[in-house]
Structure formats: C-alpha cells, structure tokens
C-alpha cells in the first residue's frame, strides 16, 4: 500500500517509502519545482529553449515546464531538436515530438547534421567512436541555435543517472576540468557566446522519470540509439546500477558530494579565459574548437 493513502503503490523510494500514482506525481513535481527554485533555474521574463530528443527525459522536462509556466505570459518556451541522421532511431522520434509540441502549441525548431554539415552521423561513424563525434557536434549546434532563437537558457533532460555517470567518467578519464562545467545550471550569466544550460531533472533518477513519463502517457514505444550499447557511458551506467542495487542511494551520494566540491572546481577552472575558435569564431578553450577539430578529422568541409 501507498504510505499516505489506501492505494496500490507504483514506486518505492530508496528510503523504502511506497507511493501510489497520485502521491508519486506530487512527489515528482514537488522535487522538480524545488530544484528550479533552489538553483534559480528559471527567473522572471526568461526565454527558454528545451533541447528535445523525443525521449522520456527531454519530453518530461518540456511537459513540466509547460505546465508550470503556461499561464505565465512572461516566460516563453520553445523546443529545439537535433536530427543527427541515425537511421532507425532519431527519424522515428521526429513525428511524435512534432505532435507533442503541436498539442501544446510550443514552437519546434529541427536542425539536422545533413543540412548543417552535409552528412548523416551514420555515414561517418565507421572506425570511430560514434558518441564522441555525435556529442561534440550536437553540443555545438545546440549552442549556436539557442543563440539564433535568442533564448537566455537551454533546458535539457539530464537526470541524476546521467550526472552520476559523467562525474565518474570524468574521474576515470582524468578529465576533472570538464566536471567544473556540470551542475544543475551551467554557463555564465548574460554572456554573448554561451547560452546557459539548465537541468530541471537534475535530482530525478532515470527510473523515476520513466515511471512519470509512462503514467503521464508522455512516452509510448522504446527507442534506443544503435550506438548506445557499445558506449563507455553504458558500461558506467551498468556498473553504477549494480552498486545502487547493493547499496541503495549510491547515485544520490555521488551527485550530492559532487555538489559540495563543485564551487571549488569552478573557481579553479575560471582561471582559463574563454577564447574563440580561429575557424568558426565560436567560444572554445583551445585555438580550434572541438567541433572544428572533429570536422577536420572527418575531412569534411564545414
């Protein structure tokens, strides 16, 4: 039974508390609102683009922000989708995402690798790590199109699992500097080169989000990128989930202890000034940005 009312439970928290559908919705929305409030993710007169992939996480973010701010005329919401050109995956996410946005009257912008870089991801991954190419190019397009859409913030569906994985991955790869750019809100306020990233689902686990998205009818069919299973991230995910099963609360501990050292990390990283890429003039920590470096490796024109 639910801990609060005589109904069948749909979720068991790691504290052991069980929640029915209604109590779970309340718990979930309250926690997301708290994240938004405590970390000031959304402020008066914000213009926000939500990066949507068509998966459960990004559509849940879009749905929750829409429900919170639909009566608030001062907050504008847009959706931004990147089509990498992954057959059997992204193309199947496009139609449901269009429908989702249309039902809520949210303007949706779709940007494709094909149009921007004149290739599909599928065409260039042979002998390479798909996720490295994909991630760099997607981040770059999200930043440049968020600027074109003239929004102040870009909301993403990153969740507790993603963040715990990234923290561990950066540790394992001795890439701690990259962790300074994590957290519920990243970037610099009012910087012309960057759009701030916000992560309203920062403290929600994948399992909580899936439960919410399923019960709200946000997602229907399972869909997975064909390159996902072989990724480094997927191995870290499995390791962390095995730990979580043995020691419930592990992922929470990773993220909350990380939050304690984050300010120190950020201070340390601030020393490096922002430069601009010699080739494309986008912000970069090196002379040539990661996107241009990847495109150069692929020996394709920009």
């Amino acid at each position, binding site marked *: 039974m639910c801990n609060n009312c005589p109904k069948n439970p749909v979720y068991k928290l790691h504290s052991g508390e069980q929640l029915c559908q209604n109590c779970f919705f309340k718990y979930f929305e309250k926690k997301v609102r708290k994240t938004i409030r405590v970390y000031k993710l959304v402020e008066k007169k914000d213009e926000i683009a939500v990066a949507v992939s068509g*998966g459960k996480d990004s559509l849940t973010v879009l749905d929750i922000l829409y429900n919170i701010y639909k009566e608030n005329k001062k907050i504008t919401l847009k959706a931004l989708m990147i089509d990498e050109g992954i057959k059997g995956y992204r193309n199947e996410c496009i139609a449901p995402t269009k429908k989702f946005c249309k039902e809520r009257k949210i303007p949706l912008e779709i940007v494709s690798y094909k149009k921007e870089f004149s290739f599909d991801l599928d065409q260039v991954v042979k002998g390479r790590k798909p996720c490295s190419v994909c991630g760099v190019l997607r981040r770059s397009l999200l930043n440049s199109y968020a600027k074109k859409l003239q929004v102040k913030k870009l909301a993403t569906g990153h969740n507790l699992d993603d963040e715990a994985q990234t923290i561990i991955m950066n540790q394992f790869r001795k890439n701690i500097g990259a962790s300074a750019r994590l957290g519920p809100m990243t970037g610099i306020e009012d910087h012309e080169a960057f759009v701030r990233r916000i992560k309203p689902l920062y403290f929600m686990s994948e399992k909580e989000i899936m439960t919410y998205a399923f019960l709200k009818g946000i997602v229907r069919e399972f869909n997975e990128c064909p390159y996902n299973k072989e990724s480094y991230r997927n191995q870290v995910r499995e390791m962390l989930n095995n730990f979580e099963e043995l020691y419930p609360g592990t992922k929470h501990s990773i993220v909350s202890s990380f939050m304690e050292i984050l300010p120190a990390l950020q201070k340390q990283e601030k020393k490096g000034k922002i430069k601009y890429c010699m080739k494309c003039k986008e912000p970069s920590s090196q002379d040539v940005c990661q996107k241009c470096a990847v495109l150069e490796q692929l020996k394709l024109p920009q």
Partner: protein
Amino acid sequence: MKVYYDRENKEYTVKAKNIQDMLKELKLNKNSVIVVVNGMVVTEEYALKTKDKIKILSVVSGG
C-alpha cells in the same frame, strides 16, 4: 508465465511469483527497468497472478 521485455523486443517465460524474483531470474537490474502489469506500474513486492499481462520497460535514455 510470459513476460515481454521492450529493450530486447523479446518474450521470456519465468517461474517467479513476484516482481523482485522475476527480475533476478531474468538477470535484470531493478534500477534499469519498470514493470507494468495489466497496464499499471507495480513495485517489486507485487505478487504475480496467472492471468497477468506483464511488460518490462527499460528506463535507459536512448542516446
């Protein structure tokens, strides 16, 4: 009892009497799936009945 698992698009036959044992039998981690019985999400303690329609849904982000 028959169980459908969406990430593999496969149906399995299980002997378990509750969700927790079923996931163990299938070697699935409880943190990476949710279980839907007759259209409703259930927790690990749920006791399976013979006519139940069981679906296991992966919670992994697609990429």
